[in-house]
């Protein structure tokens, strides 16, 4: 455990990963290979890896898109990553010691085993119990009871371990949780039943104890299954960064690891690569994609003296950079650290089931104890009184309570998954019902992040064909959009001469002796005053003829305006906060109907705003997608992101919406409210059942038959209620 926490500190988030080994000659290495998609991939990877010297075996886990390799000690992750690259797959090493996936797998396997054993035992013992309840006498009854004991005692010892372990750890902290009465009931009933059958008694509660264990384990297993895989945000972040950099050492460029870079080093970043660490440009001019940090997807011009950040994508010019922060001290890394802190705080939320347990556990004990005392005073018969109090303990059925919440969460998560909504944390739905304010990010959340060209139909085909031909030479988002829209119109692309991309200005080329220019207004036609400059646009000119303006608008996701209306009808406050400039943000907010808007906002501001709202007692739902939202997402009461979001954002949210259907948020809220109602209904069912059952038990009318029946019927009632449409 301490090893786990150690690896979360900043300086060790880098991939100095090691394999796992219990054998001095070989070790296991894990890699994440997201491109696995068919049976052919499985063959290619396994066969391709096994051909390598030193690899003992390899196995692809198709569901998790992972590869596990057993190899001799000298093989490292780097060898495997290179080999997979040759086979056509990009991959990254997985450090399994940090990965808590392994532990979740182990836990669910253990639960499954215990479930199987208790299921087997409970069915068999029930078989025999039915014979006994139907009136088996004397030796038959004795035989069956002894066989039941033979099956029940070992099975109980094995399967109810999770409850006992949990109960002990809670008692050590001097607190009562749900597992304490459960463990007490199981333990006492086994002991009493054994005692009874030795004395040739008529009542033994093995079947009830086993059925109790079985149902409760079902609930636990369901909970374990709905606990979605969570990867640490730090892991996800490393995927976005480059691991190697080109460092200048005495005038020559050498390939080094990024974590070796120190402040003051000079690094070369060529076009098309990611900036390795925070720094200042000392040479070169280019445009970078800063969307990871600022959320803005219109490229940012950089030149000598400008600051650049780790994770920025260098689009079109080579840059020489002087390092100002080492990799564990970058802006990105600091945000990740904030995220870890917020996540730790959020785990302190007390869910409904915790609140129920707080009342239930002491209540049950008091009831059982008072029944015991009452009967002892009344009859002075120790055995009889003990029997009654055990009956009370068993019948207060922690099963219904133990099943109340997991069944609802499991069935709701399944329903939501069919709609394309992935619920990651089990308390997410409860927290959603408490929300009163929703904060949206703009780029990538309300918009698709793509820029759509809106006036292409006004441009004559021959002009469009030339403009598209020149734009096809650039990676700039606006150029790519022109190319795309021209292709979709079936326009012919012409070959051009002397194509040149000038970073920060545009593209120029020659066609049939004429000069073509595509780019910023200030460069293409600086003297034209008639063209307005308030929307995103790029300008095209042939020689000195007319200037054509290509206008662009951000593409808003489907159904967003209607969704916002619905949310406002539900009396929820809606706000847009964006890192993009204020004018585009204001315009967008107006077009979809949000009044509270703030543009040009830093990630820190978003987080502070949420903190401010929290302090005023508001419960905030944050919907965002980029790194600039990650800190805010972890600080909000609940958070959602689209599946197109950054992996680090996906790691820190509660709910992920697939297929970009952000407009499903009102439906999600409705379903969250329904599930909360169901949970409360389940608690009511359990409560009413207890109100009826406890007096019956205290008066001594509960035989093992009635106990088993009562328990099963209440559990089934609760589960059925959870599963209904």
């Amino acid at each position: 455990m301490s090893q786990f926490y150690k690896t979360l500190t900043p300086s060790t988030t880098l991939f100095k990963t090691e394999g796992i080994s219990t054998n001095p000659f070989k070790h296991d290495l894990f890699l994440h290979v997201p491109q696995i998609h068919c049976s052919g991939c499985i063959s290619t990877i396994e066969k391709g890896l096994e051909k390598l010297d030193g690899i003992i075996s390899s196995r692809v886990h198709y569901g998790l898109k992972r590869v596990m390799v057993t190899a001799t000690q000298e093989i490292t992750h780097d060898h495997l990553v290179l080999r997979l690259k040759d086979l056509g797959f990009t991959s990254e090493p997985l450090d399994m010691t940090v990965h808590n996936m392994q532990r979740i797998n182990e836990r669910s396997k253990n639960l499954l085993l215990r479930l199987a054993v208790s299921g087997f035992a409970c069915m068999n013992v029930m078989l025999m119990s039915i014979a006994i309840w139907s009136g088996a006498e004397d030796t038959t009854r004795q035989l069956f009871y002894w066989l039941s004991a033979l099956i029940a005692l070992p099975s109980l010892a094995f399967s109810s371990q999770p409850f006992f372990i949990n109960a002990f750890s809670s008692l050590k902290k001097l607190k009562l949780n749900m597992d304490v009465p459960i463990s007490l009931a199981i333990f006492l009933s086994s002991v009493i039943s054994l005692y009874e059958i030795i004395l040739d008694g008529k009542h033994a509660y093995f079947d009830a104890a086993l059925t109790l264990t079985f149902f409760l384990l079902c609930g636990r297993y369901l909970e374990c299954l709905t606990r979605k895989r969570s990867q640490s945000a730090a892991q996800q972040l490393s995927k976005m960064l480059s691991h190697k950099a080109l460092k200048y050492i005495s005038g020559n460029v050498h390939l080094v690891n990024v974590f070796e870079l120190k402040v003051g080093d000079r690094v070369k970043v060529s076009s098309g690569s990611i900036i390795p660490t925070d720094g200042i440009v000392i040479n070169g001019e280019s445009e970078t994609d800063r969307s990871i940090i600022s959320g803005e997807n219109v490229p940012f011009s950089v030149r000598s003296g400008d600051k650049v950040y780790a994770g920025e994508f260098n689009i079109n010019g080579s840059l020489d950079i002087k390092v100002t922060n080492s990799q564990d001290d970058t802006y990105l890394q600091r945000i990740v650290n904030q995220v870890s802190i917020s996540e730790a705080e959020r785990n302190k939320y007390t869910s409904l089931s915790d609140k129920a347990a707080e009342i239930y556990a002491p209540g049950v004990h008091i009831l059982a104890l008072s029944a015991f005392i009452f009967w002892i005073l009344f009859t002075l018969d120790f055995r009889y009184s003990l029997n009654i109090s055990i009956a009370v303990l068993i019948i207060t059925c922690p099963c219904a309570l133990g099943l109340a919440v997991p069944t609802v969460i499991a069935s709701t998560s399944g329903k939501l998954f069919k709609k394309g909504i992935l619920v990651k944390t089990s308390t997410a739905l409860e927290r959603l019902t408490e929300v009163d304010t929703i904060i949206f990010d703009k780029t990538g959340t309300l918009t698709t992040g793509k820029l759509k060209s809106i006036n292409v139909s006004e441009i004559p085909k021959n002009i469009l064909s030339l403009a598209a031909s020149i734009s096809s030479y650039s990676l700039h988002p606006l150029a790519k959009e022109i190319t795309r829209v021209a292709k979709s119109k079936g326009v012919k692309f012409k070959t051009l001469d002397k194509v040149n991309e000038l970073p920060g200005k545009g593209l120029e080329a020659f066609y049939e002796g004429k000069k073509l220019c595509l780019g910023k207004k200030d460069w293409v036609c600086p003297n034209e005053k008639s063209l307005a400059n308030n929307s995103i646009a790029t300008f095209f000119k042939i020689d000195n003829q007319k200037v054509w303006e290509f206008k662009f608008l951000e593409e808003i996701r489907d159904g967003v305006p209607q969704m916002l209306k619905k949310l406002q009808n539900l009396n929820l406050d809606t706000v847009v906060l964006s890192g993009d400039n204020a004018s585009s943000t204001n315009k967008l907010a107006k077009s979809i109907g949000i009044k509270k808007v703030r543009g040009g906002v830093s990630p820190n501001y978003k987080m502070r705003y949420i903190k401010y709202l929290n302090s005023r007692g508001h419960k905030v739902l944050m919907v965002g997608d980029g790194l600039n939202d990650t800190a805010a997402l972890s600080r909000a009461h609940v958070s959602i992101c689209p599946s197109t979001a950054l992996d680090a954002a996906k790691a820190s949210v509660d709910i992920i919406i697939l297929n970009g259907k952000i407009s499903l948020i009102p439906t999600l809220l409705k379903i969250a409210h329904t599930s909360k109602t169901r949970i409360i209904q389940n608690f009511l069912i359990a409560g009413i059942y207890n109100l009826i059952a406890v007096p019956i038990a205290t008066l001594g009318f509960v035989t093992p038959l009635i106990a088993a029946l009562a328990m099963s019927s209440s559990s089934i009632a609760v589960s059925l209620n959870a599963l209904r449409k």
Partner: protein
Amino acid sequence: MNIILILLPLSLLLGAIGLLLFYWAVKNNQFDDPEGNAQRILRDDLDEHP
């Protein structure tokens, strides 16, 4: 009805064997990757290994 003296333990024994086999299967990761195992059948280059 004395046959029940044999039947009961025998059926319990058989059930227990089934349980042990299930236990072995879970420990041996047989249930780990259902989609992957489904895909593996479709491979063209099958050898004797599972």
